[in-house]
């Protein structure tokens, strides 16, 4: 299977009543790479992961993971995949060690090997001190690490991480990125779902954006950012400042069309290497005696991808998107 993609899905369909959770989803991930699947809550990310990990049967379409059909070869496939993330849990009353040993036994390792493997994974995920404590006492980051360790017991060639950093603090998130990168450098194929463009950007070679159960855009992080317009400088001109004069002053920095909103007195300027140009933009505006109420350099976010691709925000609340705020953390509850 050396030349086959590690994950291949074609025309996956899944309906719940009249809701099309998946509506002809196609996915491809080459061996040893990270495929980032981006989308808002309810886009179909989790349904796709559940089908690819044999938890759910598709209504139509076909999918292969590690060369095995997810429906016909489901049993054989389960020995070759790992699943971690928001839904695949560990037992909170067992200790970290007991959890890993139990999952090892359920992978049908012998008792002795399951024990040794548990000890090893605890060491490698920096959980030795917590090994004898019930998981209930773990921090969010520790839980996620144990969860990931549990999915790596038999070193599966393909792992599925369903929003592995949702709810983690920045430090926990960086640590998780670190682990995922090292897995991939060792040849594991990872399918990662996330709501954060930044996360996919950090880790994924290929990114697919899905909405309403379909891929609406795909490419590398850079390609997607180009599609949504790259960095933008946003200026709000103070009362009394001349909008036309401001437009003239910033035009040299623009690499595209400058949007002007007369109502809010806002200019949105697509720029390249905006950080390096900030100082001169401010100087030029000051020289032209144009007062500024606000100034921000924005990088594209998942919200921007969605606004550009679908004309609506990724977050459920239709509020104007504050770029610094993260996309909604609300978990879809089942």
């Amino acid at each position, binding site marked *: 299977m050396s030349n086959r993609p590690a994950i291949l899905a074609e025309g996956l369909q899944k309906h719940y009543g009249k809701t099309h959770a998946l509506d002809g989803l196609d996915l491809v991930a080459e061996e040893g790479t990270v495929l980032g699947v981006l989308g808002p809550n309810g886009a179909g990310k989790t349904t796709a992961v559940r089908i690819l990990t044999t938890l759910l049967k598709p209504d139509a379409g076909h999918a292969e993971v590690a060369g095995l059909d997810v429906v016909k070869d489901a049993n054989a496939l*389960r020995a070759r995949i790992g699943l971690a993330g928001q839904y695949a849990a560990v037992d909170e009353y067992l200790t970290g060690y007991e959890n890993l040993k139990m999952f090892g036994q359920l992978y049908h390792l012998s008792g002795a090997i399951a024990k040794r493997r548990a000890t090893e994974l605890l060491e490698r995920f920096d959980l030795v001190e917590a090994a004898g404590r019930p998981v209930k006492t773990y921090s969010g980051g520790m839980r996620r690490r144990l969860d990931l360790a549990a999915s790596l017991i038999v070193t599966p060639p393909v792992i599925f991480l369903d929003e592995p950093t949702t709810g983690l603090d920045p430090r926990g998130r960086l640590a998780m990125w670190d682990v995922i990168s090292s897995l991939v450098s060792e040849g594991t194929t990872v399918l990662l779902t996330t709501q954060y463009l930044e996360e996919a950007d950090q880790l994924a070679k290929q990114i697919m954006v899905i909405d309403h159960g379909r891929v609406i855009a795909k490419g590398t992080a850079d390609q997607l950012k180009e599609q949504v317009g790259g960095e933008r400088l946003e200026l709000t001109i103070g009362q009394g400042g001349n909008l036309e004069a401001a437009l003239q002053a910033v035009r040299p920095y623009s690499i595209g069309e400058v949007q002007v909103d007369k109502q809010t007195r806002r200019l949105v300027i697509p720029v390249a290497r905006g950080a390096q140009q900030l100082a001169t933009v401010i100087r030029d505006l000051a020289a032209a005696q144009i007062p500024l109420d606000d100034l921000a350099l924005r990088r594209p976010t998942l919200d921007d991808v969605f606004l550009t691709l679908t004309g609506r925000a990724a977050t459920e609340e239709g509020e104007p998107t504050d770029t610094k705020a993260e996309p909604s953390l609300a978990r879809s509850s089942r």
Partner: protein
Amino acid sequence: MSRDVRIDEPLVPQTRSALYWTFADALVLAKRNLTQIPRIPEELIFSTIQPIIFVLLFRYVFGGAIAIQGTTYVNYLMAGIFAQTVIFGSTTTGIGLANDIQKGLVDRFRSLPMAKSAVLTGRTLSDLVRNVFVVAVMWIVGLLVGFRPAGGFLYLAGAVGLLLLVSFAFSWISATIGLAVSSVEAAQSAGFIWLFPLTFASSAFVQTKTMPSWLRAFAEHQPVTLVVDAVRGLLLDQPDATKIWQALAWCIGILIVFVPLAVLAYGRRTAR
């Protein structure tokens, strides 16, 4: 955090028959469920205190007002208490399953190359073991308040065996309910509420001949009465073969109906 998460040694799964794994995986999960019990002490304490309160209330509050021919009320009562305790105890099966589904553990189990049935059999097995413990506690409590079983060892062992079979059978009903409803809270109340009329409108605490005729018709033919009568006969050294066979038939009938129903409910519940 270390970067190297692979090891050189091959992690080769053992190859055994599917039947072997059906049992081995169920035992792994049963052990997991039993490991949890002492770590949630409040749950065990309250589920033991409840039947103790029943014993004390019935023995000392109602006991004086209820006359039983041929034996003391406490000797009469304990068969009912044992049956009620294991039947109430079986509700933990459905609650435990609903909990595992809600927390995502069942999804993890289903993504593993383990026997599918183990989630259900592991849970019903561990609840059986838990009920052995609860029966033992109630036995001691009974002895402390004057319970004096008259049956020989074989009869007493038979009574305990029948109680455990009842516990196992009701666990599968509880599993079906826990899997059919959509939340842990629903599993809790739906699993419990119907057991009150079933255990009280029976010969567990009073003789059915004291009930109005319409209730008697129900009480005398429902499984709890048959089980309680069979167990009581064995405990008091007056075994009634008919009642024992009827009780066994009920248990087996329940298993024949509810094991497939629970499996079906599990399949439907997890296919969402």
